[in-house]
């Protein structure tokens, strides 16, 4: 299977560790077999009253195995876990590299599908793929081969008997288990329904209490719960077979070995002294089989996780990316968009159609329209989140597709509504944009972004830990830091995609004023549905259903008394708090 092969690629570099680990695991079980076989032989021989000296080798053997088991176990645990952790590290790194090579657009899609969270869960699942999926069958096989060899020294019937039962206990049980697990989806679905009702009960608590329907929902969970319990027991009745089948086969192997042994002794084909060691040895060999009892569910789980992780690799960037040739100099930075159309990979309707605009250096452009009118699509295409399908975009006369992404992202900066702050200090978050920035520069950027009054309230100042996703700061504060970050980055073209969402109107206006004067000779694209702070824009494009419905300055558009005017009137009734 190709997924197994891919997983194996991660294991391969550690084959020395693996070999040693497998050997130690084998010796751990082998020691126990050795202990029981020599002990049984010791007792059997002692019963025949030999001279004490004849027993000394056996006594030494028993003592050796008595000690070696613990030592091998420790070594095996240590080495195999170490290998597992290294393999996990490689898988994690590989996942990061695959994700890193995706276009921002593809990443956004993964985000919105909550796939990233799932991938982290998958990495957790793969933590023990080596320990749970690869190691046990190999060890079981080695134990099988060596036990079979030992038995072949005695009689072929004993060997044949062992082959049959070992085969049944491994492949037979695995087959039964895989049949059982096919019915698990029904169980998972039932649990999912119950979970959804429980989530509804908590998230919809206010509505439930207000409508007086809490009892009804409690009843609903009781019903769904008992259905789940019924399915769960039904499933368990089958899945519990795995362990008890192995138990049964273990007992039957012991029984048949004993029976065969007695028959062989009766017919003079086996020395009677070997009966006890053989019985105990065969039974002890089943320790390796018990290690396989969870193999089928583990394989299922690991394969499903691995499949999702490897699927990311398949999502390679749409078009080969031009190689970064350092700072490929572009004389000027005029952005020309002509006849641009784009349909999302999963979309039916084009998101934008025949968009045209020029953004010469120093021009400040506003793009406005309702949610879903295609505003953000334009900014995403300018930043090559996606490859556009029709029309052209040129920067400094060069086709966007021929410009290396590194250069493009250095030139065009984006502050969007989905600001992300890293779980680090404020300073570290700012330095991401310009690692060489001085203290002075950092403070100036925060000042321009109107963060100064907020900074004064943070006792640790720039060293403030912003928390996971910046959650220790308010939404507005996060936006201001994102603005400061972009001020530090100092791009030639700045895209503000609803960047001031969540700010109070005064701060918003001040921050935008500061940025406008900072960018006086450079270009700005301001995307908004709020229609505030647009009066100083050189041109405003009004989008409707992906098409340009109107364009002009704020004053011109108001005079037209058309789309923009109507929206503007509506927007005035907006939030004030």
């Amino acid at each position, binding site marked *: 299977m190709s997924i197994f092969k891919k997983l194996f690629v991660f294991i391969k570099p550690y084959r020395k560790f693996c070999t040693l680990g497998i050997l130690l695991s084998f010796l751990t079980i082998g020691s126990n077999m050795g202990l029981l076989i020599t002990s049984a032989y010791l007792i059997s021989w002692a019963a025949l009253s030999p001279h004490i000296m004849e027993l000394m080798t056996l006594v030494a053997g*028993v003592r050796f195995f008595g000690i070696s088991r613990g030592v091998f176990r420790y070594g095996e645990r240590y080495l195999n876990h170490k290998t597992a952790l290294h393999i996990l590290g490689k898988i994690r790194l590989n996942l990061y590299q695959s994700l890193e090579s995706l276009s921002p657009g593809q990443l956004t899609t993964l985000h919105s599908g909550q796939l990233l969270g799932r991938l982290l869960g998958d990495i957790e699942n793969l933590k023990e793929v080596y320990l749970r999926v690869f190691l046990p069958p190999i060890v079981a096989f080695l134990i099988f081969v060596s036990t079979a060899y030992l038995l072949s020294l005695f009689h072929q019937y004993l060997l044949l008997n062992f082959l049959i039962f070992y085969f049944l206990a491994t492949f037979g049980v695995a087959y039964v288990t895989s049949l059982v697990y096919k019915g698990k989806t029904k169980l998972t679905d039932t649990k999912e329904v119950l979970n959804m009702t429980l989530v509804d009960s*908590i998230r919809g608590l206010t509505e439930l209490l207000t409508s007086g329907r809490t009892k009804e929902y*409690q009843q609903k969970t009781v019903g769904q719960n008992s259905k789940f319990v019924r399915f769960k*027991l039904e499933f*368990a*009745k089958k899945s519990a077979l795995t362990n*008890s089948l192995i138990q049964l086969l273990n007992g039957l192997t012991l029984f048949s070995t004993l029976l065969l042994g007695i028959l062989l002794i009766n017919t003079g084909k086996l020395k009677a002294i070997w009966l006890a060691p053989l019985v105990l040895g065969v039974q002890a060999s089943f320790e390796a089989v018990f290690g396989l009892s969870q193999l089928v569910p583990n394989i299922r789980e690991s394969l499903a996780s691995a499949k999702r992780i490897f699927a990311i690799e398949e999502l390679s960037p749409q078009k080969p990316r031009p190689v970064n040739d350092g700072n490929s100099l572009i004389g000027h930075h005029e952005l020309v968009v002509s006849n641009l159309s784009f349909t999302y990979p999963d979309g039916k309707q084009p998101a934008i159609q025949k968009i045209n605009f020029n953004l010469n250096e120093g021009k400040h452009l506003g793009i406005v329209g309702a*949610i879903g009118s295609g505003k953000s699509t334009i900014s995403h295409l300018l930043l090559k989140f996606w490859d556009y399908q029709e029309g052209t975009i040129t920067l400094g006369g060069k086709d966007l597709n021929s410009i290396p992404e590194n250069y493009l992202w250095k030139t065009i900066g984006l502050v969007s509504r989905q600001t992300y702050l890293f779980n680090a200090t404020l300073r570290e978050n700012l330095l991401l944009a310009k690692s060489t920035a001085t203290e002075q520069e950092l403070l100036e950027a925060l000042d321009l972004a109107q963060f100064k009054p907020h900074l004064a309230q943070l006792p640790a100042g720039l060293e403030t830990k912003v928390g996971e996703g910046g959650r220790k700061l308010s939404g507005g504060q996060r936006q201001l830091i994102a603005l400061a970050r972009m001020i530090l980055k100092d791009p030639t073209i700045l895209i503000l995609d609803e960047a001031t969402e969540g700010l109070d109107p005064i701060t918003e206006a001040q921050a935008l004023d500061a940025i406008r004067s900072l960018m006086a000779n450079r270009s700005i694209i301001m995307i908004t549905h709020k*229609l505030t702070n647009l009066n100083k824009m050189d041109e405003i494009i009004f989008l409707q259903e992906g098409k340009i419905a109107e364009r002009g300055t704020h004053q011109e558009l108001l005079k037209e008394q058309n789309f923009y005017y109507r929206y503007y009137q509506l927007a005035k009734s907006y939030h*004030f708090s």
Partner: protein
Amino acid sequence: MTFSPTFTIGVCPMINQQLIKLAKGMGNSLILVILIGSLSGLLIIAQCFLIAELVDGAFLKEQGLTELATGLSALLSLILLRAFLFWAGEIFSLKGSLQVQTKLRQTVLGQVFRSGPLSSRQQDTGQMISSLIDSVDALEDFFARYLPTLALAGIIPLGILIIVFPRDLLTALILLLTAPLIPLFMMLIGSLADKWAKKQWHVLGKMNSHFLDVLEGLTTLKLLQKSLKQTKTIEQLGREWAETTMGVLKIAFLSAFFLEFFMTISTALIAVSLGLRLLTGNMDFQTAFFLLLLAPEFYGPLRNLGTQYHAGISATKAVENVFRLLSSSPREVQFGERPVNKEILNKQIKFENVSFYYEDQRQALRKITLSIQPQEKLALVGASGAGKSTLLQLLLGFAHPQAGQILIGELPLSAFKPESLRQQIALVPQKPHLFRGTIAENIAFFKPAATLPEIKTAALKVGLHQIVLELPAGYETIIGGGGRSLSSGQGQLIALARAFLLDAPLVLLDEATTSLDPVSEEAIQKALAELLKDRRAIIAAHRLATLKQVDRIAVLNRGSLVEIGSQAELLANEGFYYRLLNSYLGKTSD
């Protein structure tokens, strides 16, 4: 994410009292599981005895198959019975576990319903959900596996000791002396490893949180051209993490070492001592072999306990979560039995010196005094956290104010039956919850008996009808968890439609703070105007257009009432409201 618990360490976690209390909920199943366990213990001993007898028969007594046939068939039936008991034991322990979980789910849910939305802060819903779902799920392995294993670890070795003692004192002593050492060493080493892990938690937790952080912000990193640099950091952190984890495991695995060591070394000791006594004729083979067979069975259950360690640890954590939720005793909300009708809700509503604190002692409302006249529409204005939502929730009877009182007409709010009161109030929450079900069911949430034509009328009034018709299954489209997701604007329209359908005399509206685009805003404003027509309303307002529809405005600041009056009065006052509005209007009218 702290020390990864899935690595089997092999320590007996402390059983706390809460877990024992829960275990009693297993009822008969627990007794059955213990019975089955004891019976299997007996069978193991019998099996060992039979094997010893059979081997002795064939080996020393030189008996043939005919003489041994009875013993062999007894052995075969024992083996079959043991396999069956093993299966039955698993089923009964699962059954008991499911009983405990079922009971716990209902208890937690009941607690959530009793406490109401005011006792838990909104941010805690995630925590509550994880307690109710993940933590309760995590208890399964504890009751279904760990507890039975624990019981067996007590019963089987004891049974074996009883058998061994009269037969051979030396073997019994070896077993008796080593047995307590195993759990003792496991516990000592376990707590040592735990301490070590806690010391290193910073490094151990950093890897996962950093990885998550980087993935979440990958787009940002790419645009700032810092994403490639992270490859190295991840590699390095991964290596650090692996090393630290191994440092902890190095200690933790010592318990596995000691477990195996004690088990095998004492088996070896027993074998050697038995062999020597056989040699001197102080013992017969059958007894010696029987004792040798019993030795591994004696330690087996203790080893199994080690492999179930994980279930024990995660259960302790899970049960902590659940009990934290259960122990936050809800404030008893005592209400009267008086029914509420439309007339009562048309009387004056009065807040007299109302103060309210959250459970964490934060004050939400400070001595609010205000009265709302019949037919009046009142807007509450103020920053988030000013107390607007709390005021609305007190009116719904989700909690009593700690000081002051709310009067409806002459009677305190607490005299009325809350269910009856809520029937007469249409609530439009800030973030309406869409339940899993059809759109029709969701619109009819406050009035489940509504007919489809009534539902459609309500949808028409808020401008939702056309949107619903465009969905593939129309009013039968499944929304909510796992269903089709709606935009937040559409969610708000559904909340308004719910209020329409209920047709209550009083509307409590908690306006959404997030801004929508003009098209959606217009739709909502239109629907709202329609809803407020001829109805009394109290509105936590965020929109200017809404303020134009109310009679009076109450301005709240940090839980206190700052100003109250009509729009014109407040503007003339040039106070808090004036400044608030000017800061906004000043920026949009340019």
